[in-house]
């Protein structure tokens, strides 16, 4: 056991405070817009805090550190692309400005306004599928991190996963977006302190000179140059650029923050400033991974072309190198603060994702289907109840998937592909709907189906590389939208009123 009493006190104090604050959010829930988009009352600073906290979790630290371990400094390219894309989206208002003007609560809701109710439901199903599969591995990876750093026996992994999920589920179900925003603010502060602390510790322990030397001797110039790196290359850079523009505009949890801001102009400012945080969100954990490679990368060279980490004579997976390094370099007290920070990161991400995907199930699948069947609309309180039940369903699925699914490769790339299942079609259809007058409902259907098939078939069945799979999905979705729209043009009379306007 690596944890001392002092570490446990820090962690338990954090958990009790978060739960208490999270439950307060329940007081402010009046209707479904309070529950899902905090009454659209988010200001700039708390908007930045909740957007950053939502997209920085232990899972983020784990997959970026693994990526840094395997690709060296070349991995930084992904972080730079994600940050710059966010700044550009914020500055130009691409998609997000119009989304906020439309007062949406979910991304698929746009499909009903622009295309049809049927396409909204189909998009909702594909979004929920991709999103929940994406979230499915979070708990397992987070549980691995916590058991490694605290030194808990791995037999307790399931218990740790259940405990994390239960805590975040309680306040998410009760207070929805309001509870999430309040806890995100606290969690953002804590996780930022932990991120900066770990970066300083990691570089100080490994030594900057030793880090550069290790990357050069292990990976050669491919450890610095993303274009010549065999795992990356130009295809990776192009896929990542398209992918991150899609994420920052159409990823449900990110979009919900934009929907929650006070105005379209404010949503752009939140996005721009968070873009700078995204640069550090990627590069700092990648640096931890590179430091872990420097300290522990002494095993035999694996299929990834990097030596396996060896800690105390035990051979680990590259994914486990970073938490093992933290367990080794952090002293008593500091370890407690860092684990509390990581727990904060974990809970802020998971609670937001639970709300994000459950809101799609309730608002874009269940409620529209009720309408299509001619049932009376639900009042706000019943809509909140449906959301809470969907929350519970997503939690149970995530728990099950996390326990039984084994990852085929690098976590970062798995997450990228599962996100692409829905992002390819959604991004292309939204772009087409907003900026191309000829985009039709048939084109939208084809884009969604081709985008999902273009991610699932090459990756899971043909075993193509992630880069090519990602490009294929976005390419097929674009072809689907164009072909469908040209072959089956939109008829003005069949269009929803809002789209005609």
């Amino acid at each position, binding site marked *: 056991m690596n944890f001392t009493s002092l570490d446990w006190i820090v962690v338990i104090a954090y958990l009790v405070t978060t739960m208490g604050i999270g439950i307060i959010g329940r007081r*402010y829930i009046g209707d479904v817009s309070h529950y899902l988009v905090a009454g659209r*009352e988010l200001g700039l600073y708390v908007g930045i805090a909740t957007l950053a906290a939502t997209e920085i979790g232990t899972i983020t630290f784990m997959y970026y550190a693994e990526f840094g371990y395997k690709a060296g400094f070349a991995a930084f390219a992904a972080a730079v692309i994600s940050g710059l894309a966010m700044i550009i989206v914020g500055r130009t208002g691409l998609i997000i400005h119009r989304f906020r003007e439309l007062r949406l609560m979910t991304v698929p809701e746009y499909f009903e306004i622009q295309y049809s109710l049927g396409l909204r439901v189909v998009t909702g199903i594909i979004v929920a599928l991709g999103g929940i599969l994406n979230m499915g591995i979070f708990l397992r990876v987070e549980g691995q991190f916590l058991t490694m750093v605290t030194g808990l026996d791995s037999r307790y992994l399931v218990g740790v996963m259940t405990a994390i999920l239960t805590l975040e589920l309680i306040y998410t179900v009760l207070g929805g977006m309001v509870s999430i925003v309040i806890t995100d603010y606290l969690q953002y502060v804590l996780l930022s302190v932990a991120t900066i602390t770990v970066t300083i510790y990691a570089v100080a322990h490994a030594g900057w000179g030793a880090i550069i030397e290790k990357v050069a001797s292990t990976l050669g110039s491919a450890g610095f140059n993303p274009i010549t790196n065999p795992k990356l290359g130009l295809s990776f850079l192009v896929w990542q650029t398209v992918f991150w523009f899609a994420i920052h505009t159409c990823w449900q949890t990110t979009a919900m923050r934009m929907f929650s801001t006070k105005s379209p102009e404010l949503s752009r400012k939140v996005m721009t400033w968070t873009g700078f945080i995204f640069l550090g969100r*990627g590069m*700092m954990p990648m*640096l931890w991974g590179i430091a872990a490679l420097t300290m522990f990368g002494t095993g035999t060279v694996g299929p990834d072309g990097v030596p396996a980490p060896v800690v105390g004579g035990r051979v680990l997976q590259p994914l486990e190198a970073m938490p093992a390094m933290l367990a080794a370099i952090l002293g008593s007290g500091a370890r407690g603060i860092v684990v509390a920070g990581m727990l904060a990161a974990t809970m802020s991400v998971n609670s937001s994702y639970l709300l994000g995907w459950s809101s799609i199930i309730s608002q874009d699948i269940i409620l529209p289907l009720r309408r299509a069947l001619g049932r009376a609309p639900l009042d706000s309180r019943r809509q909140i109840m449906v959301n809470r039940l969907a929350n519970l369903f997503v939690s149970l699925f995530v728990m099950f998937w996390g326990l039984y699914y084994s990852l085929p490769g690098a976590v970062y790339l798995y997450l990228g592909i599962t996100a692409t299942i829905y992002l390819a079609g959604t991004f292309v259809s939204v772009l087409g709907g907003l900026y191309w007058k000829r985009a039709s409902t048939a084109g939208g259907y084809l884009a969604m189906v081709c985008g999902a098939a273009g991610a699932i078939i090459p990756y899971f069945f043909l075993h193509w590389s992630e880069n090519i799979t990602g490009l294929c999905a976005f390419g097929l979705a674009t072809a689907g939208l164009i072909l469908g729209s040209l072959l089956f043009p939109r008829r003005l009379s069949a269009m929803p009123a809002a789209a005609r306007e």
Partner: protein
Amino acid sequence: MRYWLLFWTFAALTAGLSFALITIVVTIKGGRDLRELFRGLVEQRKKRGE
């Protein structure tokens, strides 16, 4: 390789500093935003007559 290393070092320093600075500003000013959020939500409920 040398130029890439220089570029990544500069990028990492910029990223780390931006991260730290924005965190400080958000920590200080976020509390006021939260109070305004609560006030706004209470007003919305009052308007709806709850």
